[in-house]
């Protein structure tokens, strides 16, 4: 087993065991932290598919998380206050909300990706960010859903056999989802499709000369990634029970990118490690000083600059 696989498995084992132990020994706070970490790890894992493996520096990934959360919040709102019944969208059923979150995000990724992926480099970064800001302002402008004050989710998603009001069950769902997300990304990136995606990152012209339409492959990955981030958003909405456009702010997108790069893009476990390191450090540093942003930022930059391939770079196999 490679050192990387081992590191990933150990981290996942710790993540499975520690939070429940904390919870049952009276430290509910740490379970909360772990749940947030796990959900953000799913979002980071989805970003890794296009950023780490595809080389597509999308600076708007938080928009998908936000859209996913609103796909839970808006039906829950209408369920309570009326409206949209005719569309079947006044509901607290997770079996409606979660597919809605993923479909909305897939569609948004398809439409915006079709445009963004025609650009390269800095233009791609700017335009993905611009589309995300567009969603941000769109949500801000809708008074009914609270505008920039946000929206309280009064009732969590109802799923058969699960009670998401129970923090342990919510964590369990997030954890299982993270495992699934990691396995799916791993499977995709090792497949023939994944080879094209990775090849296009390394040398798109070469791959095109092989007769492959890199645009179509990238767009497909972009849509899969968006749908996965939407799923993470649906979980996040259930976790925070309060959603606001702030979730889609460009700084949130930046944080997701940082998690991927910090942990190690293009690896199965990297985004999860990055999300864990990010959330835990943020928590610890904010206890020491209210000026934690500066040392935190410097620390992150140091890791990115001095470890090749992020935290996963420490677990490189010998060659």
């Amino acid at each position, binding site marked *: 087993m490679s050192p990387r696989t081992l590191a990933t498995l150990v981290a996942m084992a710790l993540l499975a065991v520690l939070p429940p132990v904390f919870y049952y020994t009276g430290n509910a706070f740490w379970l909360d932290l772990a749940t947030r970490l796990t959900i953000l790890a799913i979002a980071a894992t989805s970003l890794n598919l296009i950023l780490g493996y595809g080389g597509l520096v999308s600076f708007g990934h938080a928009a998908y998380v936000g859209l996913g959360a609103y796909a839970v919040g808006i039906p829950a709102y209408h369920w309570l206050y009326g409206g949209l019944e005719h569309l079947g969208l006044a509901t607290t059923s997770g079996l409606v909300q979660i597919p809605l979150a993923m479909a909305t995000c897939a569609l948004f990724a398809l439409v915006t990706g079709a445009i963004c992926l025609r650009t390269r480099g800095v233009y791609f970064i700017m335009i993905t960010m611009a589309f995300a800001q567009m969603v941000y302002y769109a949500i801000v402008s809708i008074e009914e859903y609270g505008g920039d004050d946000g929206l309280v989710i009064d009732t969590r998603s109802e799923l058969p056999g699960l009670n998401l009001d129970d923090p342990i069950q919510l964590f369990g769902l997030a954890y299982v989802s993270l495992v699934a997300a990691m396995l799916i990304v791993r499977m995709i990136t090792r497949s023939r499709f994944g080879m094209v995606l990775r090849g296009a990152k390394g040398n798109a012209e070469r791959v095109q000369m*092989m007769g492959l339409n890199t645009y179509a492959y990238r767009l497909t990955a972009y849509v899969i990634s968006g749908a996965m981030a939407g799923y993470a958003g649906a979980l996040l909405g259930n976790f925070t029970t309060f959603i606001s456009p702030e979730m889609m702010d460009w700084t949130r997108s930046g944080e997701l990118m940082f998690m991927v790069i910090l942990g190690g893009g293009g690896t199965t476990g990297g985004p999860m490690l990055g999300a864990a390191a990010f959330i835990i450090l943020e928590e610890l540093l904010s206890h020491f000083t209210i000026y934690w942003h500066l040392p935190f930022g410097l620390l992150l930059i140091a890791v990115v600059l001095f470890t090749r391939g992020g935290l996963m770079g420490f677990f490189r196999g010998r060659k």
Partner: protein
Amino acid sequence: MSILETRNLMKSFGGIRATDDLTLAVEEGELHAIIGPNGAGKTTLITQLCGTQMPDAGQVLFKGRDITGLAPHKRARLGITRSFQITSLIADMTVLENIALAVQARAGSSFRFFRAASSVEAIQSRAMELLARVGLAEKAGMVTAALSHGEHRHMEIAIALASEAELMLLDEPMAGLGPEESARMVELLRGLKGKHTIVLIEHDMDAVFALADRISVLVYGHIIATGLPAEIRANKEVEAAYLGEEA
């Protein structure tokens, strides 16, 4: 009928006419060498043939069909492949992965999400076969970036072979090779003669005269002569424009 034709191709960069009223016909099955001094516009011609650059005017025809506006990946599917003067591989993938990608592209089975690419036996074995053919079988598992320049040049050929393209555009495959590696490359190309139509751009005159069925001479973006190797050798104009400076 010619397999490849260009008609009055024009391409300028600012004030430089890199391709100037270039008309060329490549016959099916021949190895057609294009020689010319540095900056004559040889690579620029290749990029227009494979579609990564568009001509300002003129036409490119493949098997009689006008492909002037066709995207590179579509031309590749029609059966045109190229190798690059400046090695162009996927540096962070392994040697085998590079070749396997070209093989799966040819097989048309790239939109598959489930099985690991490395477990698709037909593709892997075909890629290994090609690596063996260019003498790189032992390096299959190495990261491409770790190989030498000469080995990269041979990988370029393996990728071109993987495409099973009817028409191969080879841009200076010998560039930067030592005498031994050059000799190996000449043998490799000799083995391809007749099986593929090859447009070979090369500065190495020994290689060109050893391999070519016909030679075209490109100077300032314009073909000044096309003929059999013996004719080109005897051509005074060519000698003045090009061969003279080599001797």
